[in-house]
């Protein structure tokens, strides 16, 4: 385990531009071409998007389908702790929760991943050895992303070296909002390269992008740059994951697959606290991108407190009566 910057990273040259899927082979040939492409994506009407998610929010999920939804949601959770006060102890306890979310019920599925800062990835890796649960690490000067590329790449390599299976990077929102789309693109390409075998989730921080048009553009940018997942938020900016944002991102991955054949995942993170919220997201996935995305490989939910609510609801379905917070573990 090393926490030292790779001295070469500071002078590392930008890696060669990624080869893009056929229909979009030349959209990054210049800043203006890339801008024309991104700005040529269909607009998003915010009110229309909101009313669509409001309508889907009225879907009534009961009995067997609710049980399935809860277990599916649990298996999609990236159980997350991203505090300055995080310690190896905290991470280990989270890992234990991730393996057996409900100690009273061995039938309860494990979560998808544990998400921590890069320096604690090694602890998580050790605690999760042999479970099949991934270690996700935030990197690239999370959450602001305000550091030089070299520092960001070093951050990534460090996390990967510590055992991270997945890297959750942040895009340079400043560059994005000022229209330097190729800079954002190149940075994601470089990070992807630095990830090696690790999967790359690209955090758009949609709370800072503000408009759904920007969310759609950023989604396409991140997918073209090679992101395996697009993720809404760091959880440090409000609003974090919202249903309209998630809708637009799901439309983007759906359309991207239709155009290129490559299936990119989606991860809403932050603000999803209740089973009801989680089920609404699953319905949104089901009716927007389709059932192919209803798997932890393609859809994740970044959350911390959500898991306990899912467990309480799960217990209610199993036992037929309600329980309370003391019947799930505080981690």
């Amino acid at each position: 385990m090393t926490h030292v910057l790779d001295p070469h990273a500071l002078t590392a040259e930008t890696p060669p531009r990624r080869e893009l899927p056929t229909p979009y082979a030349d959209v990054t040939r210049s800043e203006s071409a890339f801008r024309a492409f991104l700005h040529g994506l269909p607009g998003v009407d915010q009110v229309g998007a909101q009313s669509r998610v409001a309508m889907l929010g009225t879907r009534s999920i009961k009995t067997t389908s609710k049980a399935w939804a809860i277990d599916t949601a649990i298996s999609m959770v990236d159980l997350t702790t991203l505090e300055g006060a995080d310690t190896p102890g905290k991470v280990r306890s989270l890992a234990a929760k991730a393996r057996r979310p409900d100690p009273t019920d061995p039938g309860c599925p494990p979560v998808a991943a544990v998400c921590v800062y890069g320096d604690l990835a090694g602890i998580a890796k050790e605690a999760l050895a042999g479970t099949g649960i991934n270690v996700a690490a935030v990197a690239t000067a999370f959450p602001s992303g305000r550091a030089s590329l070299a520092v960001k790449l070093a951050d990534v390599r460090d996390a990967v070296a510590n055992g991270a299976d997945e890297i959750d990077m942040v895009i340079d929102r400043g560059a994005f909002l000022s229209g330097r789309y190729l800079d954002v693109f190149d940075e994601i390409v470089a990070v992807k390269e630095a990830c090696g075998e690790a999967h790359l989730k690209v955090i758009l921080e949609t709370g800072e992008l503000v408009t759904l048009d920007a969310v759609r553009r950023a989604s396409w940018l991140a997918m073209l740059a090679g992101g395996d997942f697009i993720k809404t938020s760091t959880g440090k900016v409000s609003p974090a994951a919202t249903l309209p944002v998630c809708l637009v991102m799901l439309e983007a991955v759906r359309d991207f697959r239709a155009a290129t054949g490559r299936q990119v995942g989606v991860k809403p993170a932050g603000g999803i606290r209740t089973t009801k919220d989680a089920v609404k997201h699953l319905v949104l996935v089901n009716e927007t991108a389709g059932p192919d995305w209803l798997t932890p490989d393609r859809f994740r939910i970044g959350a911390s407190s959500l898991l306990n609510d899912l467990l309480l609801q799960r217990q209610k379905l199993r036992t037929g009566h309600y329980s309370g917070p003391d019947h799930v573990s505080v981690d």
Partner: protein
Amino acid sequence: MATPPSPDRPSSVFEYAPAPESRSIVDIAPSYGLFVDGEFVDGSGEAMKTVNPATEEVLSEVAVGTADDVDRAVKAARRAHSRVWGPMRPADRGKYLFRIARLLQERAREFAVLESLDNGKPIRESRDVDVPLAAAHFFYHAGWADKLAHAGLGPDPRPLGVACQVIPWNFPLLMLAWKVAPALATGNTVVLKPAETTPLTALLFAEVCRQADLPPGVVNIVTGAGETGRAVVEHDDVDKVAFTGSTEVGRSIARAVAGTRKKLTLELGGKAANIVFDDAPIDQAVEGIVQGIFFNQGHVCCAGSRLLVQENVHDEVIAALQRRIGTLRVGDPLDKNTDIGAINSAEQLARIRELSDVGEAEGATRWQPACDLPDRGFWFPPTVFTGVSPAHRIARDEVFGPVLSVLTFRTPDEAVAKANNTTYGLSAGIWSEKGSRILAIADRLRAGVVWANTFNQFDPTSPFGGYKQSGYGREGGRHGLAAYLSTGDEQ
């Protein structure tokens, strides 16, 4: 329907288990009389049956009013107008309407379930659209009752007297509210004839009138079919006729009231163009197209039944539309997850089938998603016709069902010309991200309601009604009051 998933056998398909709204909340009597002068009374005609179109189960027997029954109702309304409702302090009239609005909200679930049972519309719509909007109409108009001098209709607008109102089966309670609320707020009394196939929520509304202690005779409800409607419209002692329904019947009503003192407003058919430009917010446009034509099984006079799509995005839009239609859930109206319910009647189903067959025979291409329909009841799958030419009947006749005709255009001028190429003029849709284009097109569309980047939105504050053969008069807003008031400067 696929087997529901279970935690033991996780499926990658998220089939929502059935989520039926309980019908135990409604208590349907085996038979209903007419509501005249505050009482339920027997009708003189032979009673008719009302059925649940989703199952063909008979829900109840409902009285049929004859000309004599109508006469009694009109007399009750006249009496109530001259003795009670007319002289009443306007503020008190308003309070009665506020009461009714609150009662509708309190009994919203009951109304929604009953509406879905009798009409076949999905509970999601009756619960989220019909009933809340009906309550909103009463709440809105309640406030007008003592402010009519400020409505821009002269300093002292006067009620007309007795209003006869004939309403359709597509939004039984909502159309009742659109008619009754402004009539009462302006000081008129009412004889209402609900549609033959959907009388039950109107009869439940009669009960609400009683709970509100509305004076007897202010609202009278005479059920029946066409003959009853004719008797209502042709009664001599009526000051106002308001009708929502087909253009054909509208014509005969206009003929019937010709030469009388009766003031007439008509809200008739439509064949709305929903225009999609190549710069449209495509996902919302697709939602809007779906909402425009499949809302309420397409039993909507303002339905966006003609999709006019710019030729250069035709294939893309149609592909997205078909994908989206594939996710629509057709079935039990009481299931909270149902998107498309039952066709209201066997007659309507026959008409939809006939016109669809004509569409195919005329050379348009029919597309329907794979979709299992229940064995009993009246059902028609969501349907898209592509390759429709403006000369085809499915591009000109109102189908009043879940059938979309797709036409194309190349330029804004062509879009406007095609959109206006109809004898109707009720509504239209425009989808574009360019503000100036939207305003220019909206200006040139000959339609009473233009939805830009949205569709099928309704609000009591927003006037609704048609150009051309879609009728005249407006419902809702300040404009809707004019239909029920005399301004004193008529000549």
